């Protein structure tokens, strides 16, 4: 028995493997057709004692008579249990259409996703109510429902529609298969055959109709599972029959065409498949007593239909209500996709893993042992599969204890019970967002063991990576779910926007500490954080400008910079050289973003305007005494350049003016500090720019003039002086200085 059985399950497994590769296998669509005719109101004769009297109250009280479920109640609750398990494990893309049949058919829900829940179905069933025993049995038939089921199978589901649309001219790849589970009380085998024939005919008819419709699809394969329910204590009038063996094999050959060679190879070892009523329809009949037997049958069916397998978690410690400090060990059985046991199946290890065959021998479960969880360490396990679970006995106390424990965020490792040898952890139970998954952990030797360490490869010898900064970068570029409804004007999906953000954030991103100055400076942080943004607010621009002024201030105070001295002997570059490097780097960073918006450009302008240009700086230091004279010169220079004054310049001036108000006094008193920067521009401002222009925003006219000037300037060769000017200024009579013994070398170097 056991042998035949295991062969049967291997056989079944192979068949299921073929189906697994298909999105649109028969399990995509399941139609329940439940008989609502008067005879279903009959009692199942299975009695339930619901008045359990406690001993203390027992005296003198007559207990309530036990209640008994009708055939209808049995059928409905078992079908609901089937759906519960199905929806737990496949919340999407495995759809149920529920039809009730009496003198007509009642379709309780549709294929649409929002109709797929037990709550929806229960609500609709409540509206239908139990069958009316007084209804005329002659008018009532399960046939109404079966015909409706075939029609329903022809209706296209959301997923089918979506895939057909996306496949365009390959739409025919989307198949239409389905299963009809009929819960009824049949009269005889002949009656059953009549029902089958009728379904067969209806399929042919409907397929013709479907051929001419966009919203209908012809049925390629239909599986009828007829469950004949009869009350306890009666003999069945209908015989059990496995998948019916009539018809030809052509259809199966057709479906094989698309399977992988691997699976085809596996199939060679199978005995010939049970054939069918027709290429379109297979049928099987189960004759079951109402009550417990029916529940077991449907539980087995849901497992077969949806590739499920069972795992029993054993040794679960659970606190007893009465004895809080002791805990008894419990077992809980879970259902899940059978692939969670694939490793056992393949290695033939099922028995080693603690399989037990139960009841009628059809149901197998793999036993795994609970490992008391350690403290919640966050670890990335190598997990080869994760499968949703559903407890077989959902509201039993052990089940709900286990599920609540998991739903509260704890994970449990599961161990294969072995008689000897080391312990093997093969699975893990864990919940994610209110759903519990059975994770399959890899317990084999890894082919990637002992790889060369990353420190031995490219870039492995470098020691000053900006690990912390990149960590910060990663935090800023973490992801978050964005609702599908929120639509971006650019039409980009959120993930594309995330990539765009990464692109912006990395336009200038030195990887090692010694390659950068600005990212080692706290003072730059506000600007560096803001400039990478897609858009800047006026306030952001202001913050950036403040950052720049702050740097100017630092320079003025001659604050040291965190320039790396790696690779250079001695003290490294001089302070002014350090600032030059810093300004260059800052400019590089901001330049990569300047094109984004005008506000980004303004930040760049601010830097260009504010950064000290070494020649000027040098001069100023050296010619403190000749200030008056130089100012005259600047004046002249300025007046010549009037037309070329860009609006950027005016921005700069404006900024500097603001700055001056804040800081002028501090600086003036310090003998060491360089010449106040603002002095000169202020003069030129007063002379050159109309006051309102310096203070207010740029006028349209000045922007226009600038543009024209720029355009014009391209048309002629630039004056030498203008081309090599610094901040629009060019020093005249430079040769005089040289002759006077000025340091030519330093000047030359600085103006490089």
């Amino acid at each position: 028995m056991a042998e035949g059985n295991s062969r049967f399950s291997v056989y079944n497994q192979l068949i299921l493997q073929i189906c697994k590769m298909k999105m649109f296998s028969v399990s995509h669509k399941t139609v329940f057709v439940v008989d609502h005719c008067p005879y279903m109101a009959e009692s199942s004769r299975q009695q339930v004692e619901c008045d359990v009297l406690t001993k203390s109250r027992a005296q003198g009280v007559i207990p309530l008579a036990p209640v008994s479920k009708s055939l209808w109640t049995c059928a409905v609750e078992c079908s609901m249990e089937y759906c519960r398990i199905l929806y737990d494990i496949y919340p999407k893309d495995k759809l149920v259409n529920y039809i009730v049949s009496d003198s007509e058919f009642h379709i309780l829900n549709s294929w649409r996703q929002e109709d797929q829940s037990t709550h929806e179905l229960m609500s609709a069933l409540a509206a239908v109510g139990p069958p009316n025993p007084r209804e005329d049995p002659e008018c009532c038939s399960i046939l109404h429902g079966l015909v409706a089921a075939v029609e329903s199978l022809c209706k296209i589901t959301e997923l089918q529609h979506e895939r057909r649309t996306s496949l365009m001219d390959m739409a025919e790849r989307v198949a239409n298969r389905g299963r009809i589970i009929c819960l009824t009380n049949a009269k005889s085998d002949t009656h059953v055959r009549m029902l089958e024939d009728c379904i067969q005919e209806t399929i042919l008819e409907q397929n013709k109709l479907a051929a001419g419709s966009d919203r209908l699809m012809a049925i390629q394969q239909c599986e009828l599972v007829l469950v004949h329910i009869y009350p306890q204590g009666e003999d069945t009038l209908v015989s059990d029959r496995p998948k019916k063996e009539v018809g030809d094999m052509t259809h199966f050959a057709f479906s094989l065409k698309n399977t992988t060679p691997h699976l085809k190879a596996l199939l060679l070892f199978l005995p010939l498949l049970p054939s069918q009523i027709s290429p379109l329809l297979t049928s099987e009949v189960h004759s079951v007593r109402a009550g417990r037997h029916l529940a077991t049958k449907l539980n087995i069916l849901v497992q077969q239909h949806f590739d499920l397998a069972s795992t029993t978690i054993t040794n679960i410690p659970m606190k007893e209500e009465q004895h809080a400090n002791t805990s008894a060990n419990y077992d809980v059985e879970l259902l899940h996709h059978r692939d969670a046991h694939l490793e056992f199946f393949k290695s033939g290890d099922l028995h080693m893993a603690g399989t037990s065959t139960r009841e009628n021998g059809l149901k197998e479960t793999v036993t795994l042992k609970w490992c008391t969880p350690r403290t919640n360490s966050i670890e990335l396990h190598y997990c080869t599969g994760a499968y949703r679970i559903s407890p077989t006995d959902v509201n039993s106390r052990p089940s709900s204890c286990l599920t609540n424990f998991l739903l509260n965020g704890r994970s449990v490792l599961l161990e294969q019970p072995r008689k000897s040898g080391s312990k093997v952890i093969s699975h893990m139970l864990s919940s994610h967002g209110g759903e519990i998954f059975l994770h399959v952990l890899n317990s084999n030797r890894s082919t990637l063991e002992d790889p060369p360490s990353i420190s031995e490869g490219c870039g492995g010898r470098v020691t000053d990576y900006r690990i912390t900064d990149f960590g910060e970068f990663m935090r800023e570029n973490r992801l978050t779910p964005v609702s599908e409804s929120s639509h971006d004007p650019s039409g980009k999906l959120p993930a594309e926007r995330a990539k765009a953000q990464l692109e912006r954030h990395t336009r200038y991103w030195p990887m090692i500490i010694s390659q950068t100055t600005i990212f080692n400076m706290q003072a730059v942080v506000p600007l560096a954080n803001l400039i990478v943004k897609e858009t800047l607010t006026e306030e952001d621009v202001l913050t950036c400008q403040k950052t720049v002024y702050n740097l100017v201030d630092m320079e003025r105070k001659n604050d040291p910079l965190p320039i790396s001295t790696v690779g250079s002997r001695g003290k490294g570059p001089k302070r002014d050289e350090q600032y030059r490097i810093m300004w260059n780097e800052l400019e590089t960073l901001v330049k990569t973003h300047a094109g984004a918006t005008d506000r980004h450009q303004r930040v760049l302008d601010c830097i260009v305007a504010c950064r000290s240009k070494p020649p000027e700086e040098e001069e100023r230091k050296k010619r403190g005494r000749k200030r008056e004279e130089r100012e005259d010169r600047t004046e002249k220079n300025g007046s010549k350049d009037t037309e070329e004054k860009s609006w950027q310049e005016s921005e700069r001036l404006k900024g500097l003016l603001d700055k001056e108000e804040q800081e002028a006094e501090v600086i003036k008193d310090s003998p060491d500090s360089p010449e106040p920067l603002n002095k000169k521009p202020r003069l030129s401002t007063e002379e050159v720019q109309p006051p309102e222009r310096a203070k207010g925003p740029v006028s349209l006219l000045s922007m226009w003039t600038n543009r024209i000037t720029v355009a014009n300037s391209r048309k002629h060769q630039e004056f030498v002086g203008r081309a090599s000017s610094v901040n629009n200024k060019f020093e005249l009579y430079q040769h005089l200085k040289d002759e006077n013994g000025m340091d030519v070398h330093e000047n030359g170097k600085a103006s490089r």
Partner: protein
Amino acid sequence: MPTVVLMDVSLSMTRPVSLDGSEEFQRKNLAVHGLNMLFEHMASNYRLEFTALMAFSSLWELLVPFTRDYNALQEALSNLEDYDKTCVESALNGVSNVVQQEWGSACPCQVMLVTDGSLGIGKGSLRHSLQTLKQRGDDKKFPLPFPFPTKLFIMCIANAEELQMTDAMDNLEELLRLSGGDGQIFTVEGPLCMKSVQAMFGRLIDHAYSPFHAVLHCGNLSSDVQVFPRPEPIVVDEEVEPMPRTVSTDLEIVGFIEIADISSPPVISRHLVLPIAVNKEVDEVGAGATDELEEEPSASQMAGKSPNFCVLLHGSLKVEGMVALVQLGPEWYGMLYSQADSKKKSNLMMSLFEPGPEPLPWLGKISHLGPISEAAENPYGEDDSKSPFPVQPQVKRSYAQNVTVWIKASGLQTDVQKILRNARKLPDKTQTFYKELNRLRKAALAFGFWELLKGVADLLERECTLLPDSAHPDAAFQLSHAAQQLKLASTGDSQYAAFDHNIAPMHTDFSS
């Protein structure tokens, strides 16, 4: 993906090959030459591959267990001895055992059968094995297909014409088909000689042992990398999407996620991501270019000193406990993370998720993960105390929503007892009493179990009569009200039996 080289050492392999004007070679020499070339290639370009060497005739022997020591493999090749006849079936059984013992049954494996194409005669020959396929019991099953995913490469030290003269080619094709069809039969093109065999192994190298090079991008930061082992093409759905999907050579990071949020996701394969120096790529184009070996140390030392994005990424992923979500192709994603082995070594690893728009339900659709900067407020909180993950499904699972199942009598009894227990504690437990009552009412209505409603109504009425004198007067009112409501519902009258209707507590006022 480990490799097993299954070398035919039967007598037929010693058949001489006549070469013009030079010394005579045996087919075995040619095979060894080809394998040597392969091993040299692997030693320099595919170093991390584990390879085992087995020799077979009528018996089989594991000459070198799985190793990365290609010298050992080459040495074993040079010491091959000659034995009797070819028996492929028993050798394949050997492969099956050796692989499963080492790697289990889930690890994909490449099996390379090196033979001259004379596949034995009589019992034990491949022809005989294939003819008797269908007449076997469970204990004597043909070893193919192997339990583990297999790529079978059949390297024939013979040309196709020669094999087609007998049924050898047909039998080898059958063998490949049985193994699952993934793999290839290689034959020598043109006359048998060192050069043609070398060319054949060259084709194998290009097909299966050329390193997979890609560029890892994170915005403008990037690094040339080798992904090891080579990611295999995946068929998502045989019917709807029969074309296999391949990993793109541009791996684009989408963003970053905390390890706790990604939470041990299921993956289809794992790969090392090894940074490579850009100029090296040119060297490796020519298969088996071994003359670069000498220069390599200095080149790799140079490469070691120039900063590489992979190292930076790895360091930060490790420190922060995060993973990088990486796009591998259209609607296909994976994750990059730091993986440490037991020693101090750690590495950048990439795991591939199942192809599709939503590989991990708890992340939602990957294409709908956006930058946190877009959110009105930081979903991680200012102090990283929160997380937007896991994404909650719209509908709760049965075990999370207190469903009613009465398939076992105990389920029904428990629910009835709960109501009675609360009934005895009225009016304190009024809320719980009605909550449980309504839950039972809903289920009974859905299941068409009106008899139960009547029964519970009777029970409540009895409880009413059993109330002690000390009971609060409200208790009696509530009990008879509830009983009456249940009775009304059990008539199926749409006014009282609506599913969404709830029995509300009777409004009483005993305060005055």
